[in-house]
């Protein structure tokens, strides 16, 4: 069963088309990545799916139309966006306590969830948290009521690698537990590492959709081997059986300082499809 289903969805602000005829579906329990540069329409799509914006076309989550979301659906989804506010003067615990009461979650769960996201100091006020810790707290709030779908809008943007890695591990854990995760990012490495399927969004249109590895293979036209010889030469050869003897020659002559195959990645796929590089 699909947790998220979108068909021919469009959205414009005034005369500007932000999303154009988008169709995609996310099966239950999948970690789906929506990739694209800033301004591609990723956040707009999350806002539409969570009932915050009107649109034309068809979109539903958990079998309910996105234009008709109500309490029952809101209690089954969690949202993490860069502008998800926190109560700055309240402690991490008190921030979660409010939402625990609203969602009928037992108070004991608050400590569990804070521990899970790596926030041990529960008494510190949210205003004193670093960016990474704030993001962990927002994530904890989104997870507090065990949502069936988790919407994450660039959850690791601007975070240090260690914090980003912790969040990645948590997301993979959640996926194992059966949570459907809808992730937007412009970090291709993150998408490749985490996502079951990705859609590449450019100027409001999905330009490619598929499994990250398959997409990389599909668009990996270079397929070269680069040899850095000990005598200082750099030799690039096609990665084909015909070149096997030449490559072996470098090894037999003990002339290989380093050897690299051209690794396909989503960044190159995006570049190939749109002629644009993604933001870093």
């Amino acid at each position, binding site marked *: 069963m699909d947790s998220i289903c979108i068909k021919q969805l469009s959205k414009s602000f005034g005369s500007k088309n932000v999303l154009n005829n988008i169709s995609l579906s996310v099966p239950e329990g999948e970690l789906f990545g929506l990739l694209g540069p800033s301004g591609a329409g990723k956040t707009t799509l999350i806002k539409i799916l969570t009932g915050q914006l009107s649109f034309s076309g068809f979109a539903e989550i958990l079998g309910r139309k996105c234009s008709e979301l109500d309490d029952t659906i809101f209690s089954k989804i969690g949202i993490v966006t860069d502008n*998800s*506010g926190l109560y700055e003067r309240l402690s991490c615990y008190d921030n979660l306590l409010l939402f625990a009461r609203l969602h009928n979650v037992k108070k004991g769960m608050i400590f569990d969830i804070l521990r899970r996201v790596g926030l041990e100091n529960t008494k510190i006020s949210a205003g004193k948290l670093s960016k990474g810790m704030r993001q962990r707290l927002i994530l904890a*709030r989104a997870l507090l009521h065990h949502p069936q779908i988790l919407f994450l809008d660039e959850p690791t943007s601007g975070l240090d690698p260690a914090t980003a890695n912790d969040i990645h591990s948590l997301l993979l854990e959640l996926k194992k537990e059966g949570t459907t995760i809808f992730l937007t990012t412009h970090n291709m490495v993150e998408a490749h590492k985490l996502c079951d399927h990705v859609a590449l969004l450019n100027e409001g249109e999905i330009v490619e959709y598929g499994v990250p590895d398959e997409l990389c293979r599909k668009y990996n036209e270079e397929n070269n081997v680069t040899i850095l010889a000990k005598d200082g030469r750099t030799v690039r050869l096609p990665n084909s059986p015909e070149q096997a003897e030449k490559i072996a020659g470098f090894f037999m002559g003990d002339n290989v300082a380093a050897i690299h195959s051209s690794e396909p990645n989503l960044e190159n796929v995006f570049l190939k499809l749109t002629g644009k590089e993604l933001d870093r």
Partner: protein
Amino acid sequence: MKIKNVGALFCKQAKDCAKNPPFLLLFFIYPTVALVLIQAMKGQPGISEVFVSMFAVMHSVFTPIVAAASFIAEEREKNTLRVLIMSNVTLKEYLVSVGGFILLANLLTGSSFIFFGNHAVSDSLFILAMGGCSLISVILGSCIGLFSKNAAAANGLAVPIGILFAFLPMLANFNRKIETVAGFTYGQQLGRLLAGKEITFCGFIVIAANLAILVIASAFLYKRSLSEE
């Protein structure tokens, strides 16, 4: 409306307010100033009656306007209101909890005026009049909070409006023209009541008209905010 949600938000407001000294000060400033002035001018006949009624009006008008506007606008600015709405809280529940908290805090601190000296009306009428005035002020403050995009804009509007409504009754004591203008505000009518004067039929009409205008404005702004959030 879910009482559970209102209760949870009420507790949050109380904790948040307790950790916000400038905001907390707002609820104590007028009772403190009144107490200091009454003590400073102790012995002068009738002075406590004047100060008690004057500062009670200021407290009931100014404090709820600024508090409600500031609370609501901050919540909108920081996007926490949107997060609440996506957590099954309705805007109505939110406004009731904020308004209820401010009303209670204002009445609790305002009731201290009763102990500062003589007043022209009974204690229960004093509290009732302050409560009614605070309620109208909360609605006015909510309108400003819902209208403003952020806390700075809300304070920029709430403070002058609060001063206008709170200080007009005091200034009316010194100037006939101001008294005529002030007569059209609910604060002046409350001031008359607390000073032991009778509220005329026209006075009731003024209070009802003030309330009606603010309820209509708040309904309009409520609908607008609902679509925005």
